[in-house]
């Protein structure tokens, strides 16, 4: 875990990951829901793995079910890094 990571860094990285999953760059915004971006459960598993590897933050299935949109995910990750 890197305590110097900023919220903007996390946001940029999450958008980058979503784009790698097939999300259009213009659609990668905080307000978008995972459904709207066609991000499925397997994508979320992979996203959680990347977040774990890069930030040392563990996201569970319960966490994922609570997330309303991409911004929620970013905020949750940032709050756990802090």
């Amino acid at each position, binding site marked *: 875990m890197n305590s110097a990571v900023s919220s903007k860094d996390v946001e940029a990285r999450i958008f980058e990951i979503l784009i790698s999953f097939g999300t259009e760059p213009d659609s990668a915004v905080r307000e978008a829901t995972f459904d709207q971006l066609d991000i499925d459960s*397997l994508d979320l598993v992979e996203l959680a*793995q990347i977040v774990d590897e890069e930030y040392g933050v563990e996201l569970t299935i319960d966490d994922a079910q609570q997330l309303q949109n991409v911004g929620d995910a970013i905020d949750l990750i940032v709050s756990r890094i802090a």
Partner: protein
Amino acid sequence: MSDGKRCALVTGGSRGIGAAIARQLAADGWAVAVNYRDDEQGAAETVGAILELGARGCAIQGDVAHPPTADNLVAAAEAELGPVLALVNNAGVHSDGLSATMSDDEFSRVLETNLTAAFRLTRRVLRKMLRARFGRIVSIGSIVGLRGNVGQANYAASKAGLIAMTRTVAAEVARRGITANVVAPGLIDTAMTAPLSQELAGMVPARRAGSPEEVAACVGFLVSEAASYVNGATLVVDGALTA
């Protein structure tokens, strides 16, 4: 497969079918991590054969029935040979007895090694496979898992479980270029079956037991790029015994 950046992990690779699979994959260009539980000498011989084939290889001790082993094995294989992008769940045990007298321990011990350990390893290797958009998982089942066998309720249940687990995993990850299949041997000439081989061979339409190499060839195919659309399947290798 010989790009030097990925490897195959074969559990129970010190002898018999597992050793033949390790040699086959090495011949196909894979770096191969050979897991063994007790037979250090056998594992060393398998690795020696891998090196002779010009591939990279290493032996890794670990009892797959022990829950932390999956993490340890994969981490060791990755450190030595690169990401595990092919997994062969071959390690298996049997503890036979009629159901009426089989203890909880006899039942669960076989399930733990043959099925639960395969699940743990599968779960562990999927991480890298998902990221790589490629992976091959082959579990060694048995025709006993398709039709049952007197005295082997535990073994048959474990092998049937492997088939159902494999189908499910295949459906979950197929869109990531990962395949999961089962090879189900019939009577194969190994140390495990040696006491029965002569007697049972007459019941096989092919009139002989199969060889470990004949099973390994099927695994080699399923691990290959050529088998990319074979997913969730059970490939029976039994000389027409169940035909």
